[in-house]
């Protein structure tokens, strides 16, 4: 297998982009990533795009072909384009497919993109589409919502470990603060613990400020074999590990309701592949679709002891300048969560940080970064590790 590098990145603005279509934003991200890498279109061997639910959100399937067409990769170049779907982990999984295409030697220059256009439908319709990431027949049909499923994780975490609503709120407060430093973030306003606790209850104990928003956005990466990466850029960022794991689709069937075993296993595989430990990682983008999800993620990835995620967050250990900065982009909570794009956006943030280009939210001297992307309530987890030096 060959080593793989990222040579170009681009995020669109994340937010309620009512004036723009899916094809508009994904072309902006793709063209921006190519420009960043200093390449045209002829070198591209294949394209992978993460998209969860084009069928529900914009009544459009065959997203791979659509994107290739509007990116100018179809009519003359006939570049193969593949849509990847694993609910909210679609983007992370698209990146993983792209890495495997380059590592195997089948392809050299590959685009990994992710995009979702969620605001063309009413929020009820969007929520229903998102609930399809859970088990529709045995969770959804009983009246379960996505916030409701994560609320049951939160309830048991609080019962078992003493985690508090204030500690959950600290996740949102931190991520809004980070988002305020990120030009593409959906929310740049800072909030307080009281703001979270006084916001409306969606699924007890989760308030609406414990939940990530509905977002439009697209992200793209350009990958190349590490051996030729310097031909394109002075600052290639290297893939040290790509790992993925599955668990039961329904939360109720899991070994433990407060642990995402798919995250634990994917992380273990990633650390083993990279020959690194949690202490070696300088920053991480985790899947904070809800505040409790970030608490579980930092525990399951090895950055906090099980049950201590809330305390570690409240102590500021996951803030910029802390022991292990988490979600410098603002995370899903503040940067926004266009579901198919999220996993790719996380990688764009880590690459930007490892290049030293993250401006006010820069983690000085960062050598190793990690991304953690989850589908549903933990049926899919994708973990990547990146490094500045090869």
């Amino acid at each position, binding site marked *: 297998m060959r080593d793989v590098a990222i040579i170009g990145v681009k995020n669109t603005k994340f937010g309620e982009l009512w004036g723009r279509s899916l094809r508009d934003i994904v072309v902006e991200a793709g063209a921006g990533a190519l420009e960043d890498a200093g390449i045209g279109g002829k070198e591209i061997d294949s394209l992978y795009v993460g998209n969860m639910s084009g069928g529900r959100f914009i009544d459009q399937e065959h997203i791979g072909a659509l994107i290739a067409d509007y990116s100018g990769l179809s009519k003359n170049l006939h570049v193969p384009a593949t849509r990847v779907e694993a609910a909210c982990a679609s983007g992370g999984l698209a990146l993983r497919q792209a890495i495997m295409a380059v590592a195997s030697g089948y392809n050299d220059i590959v685009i990994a993109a992710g995009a979702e256009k969620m605001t063309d439908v009413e929020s009820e319709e969007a929520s229903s589409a998102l609930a399809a990431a859970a088990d529709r027949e045995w969770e959804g049909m*009983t009246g379960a919502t996505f916030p*409701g499923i994560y609320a049951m994780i939160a309830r048991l975490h609080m019962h078992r470990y003493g985690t508090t609503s204030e500690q959950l709120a600290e996740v949102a407060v931190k991520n809004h603060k980070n988002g305020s430093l990120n030009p593409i973030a959906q929310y740049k306003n800072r909030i307080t613990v009281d703001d979270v606790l006084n916001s409306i209850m969606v699924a007890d104990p989760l308030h609406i400020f414990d939940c990530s928003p509905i977002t439009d956005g697209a992200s793209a990466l350009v990958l190349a074999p590490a051996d030729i990466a310097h031909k394109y850029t002075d600052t290639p960022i290297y893939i040290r590990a790509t790992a993925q794991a599955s668990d039961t689709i329904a939360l109720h069937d899991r070994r433990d309701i407060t642990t995402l075993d798919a995250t634990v296993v994917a992380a273990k595989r990633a650390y083993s592949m990279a020959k690194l430990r949690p202490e070696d990682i300088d920053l991480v983008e985790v899947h904070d679709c809800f505040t409790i999800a970030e608490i579980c993620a930092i525990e399951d990835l090895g950055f906090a002891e099980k049950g201590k995620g809330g305390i570690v967050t409240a102590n500021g250990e996951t803030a910029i300048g802390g022991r292990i900065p988490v979600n410098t982009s603002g995370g899903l909570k503040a940067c926004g969560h266009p579901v198919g794009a999220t996993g790719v956006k996380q990688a764009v943030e880590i690459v930007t940080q490892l290049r030293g280009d993250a401006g006010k939210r820069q983690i000085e001297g960062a050598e190793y970064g990690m991304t953690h992307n989850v589908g549903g309530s933990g049926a899919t987890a994708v973990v990547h590790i990146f490094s500045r030096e090869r």
Partner: protein
Amino acid sequence: MSSVPRFWRSIGSRYNLEGTRCKECGEHFYPPRNFCVNCRRVGHIEPYKFKGTGKIISYTIIHTAAEGFEDQTPYTLAIIQLDEGPRLTSQVIGDPEKIHIGMRVRSVFRKLGEDGEGGMIYYGTKFVPEDA
């Protein structure tokens, strides 16, 4: 919900807590599985009707309803562990102030929802406190 065949084909399980059991390893499955996750190819699945008693593992009170459940809001949703072992997601009826982790519950037959006025009415299993 809005799909009659999709609901209808699992009516036995939804109305009567009918699941399955693997004769090979003895594990019970609800929701039913027709392929044992432990034994896989060498498993032998048979029908099994659950007693309907169990305890609450975790719960939430939903204030922003799922589509089709708006008129029931707020409602209590829980993960329940049946006494035979498997866990499921279901609504729990009763005073939301009194619900707690570890609470004993039993299954009851109730209306789950309907497809608008004059549409199909869905029935199935909910849970109540065991002593109710």
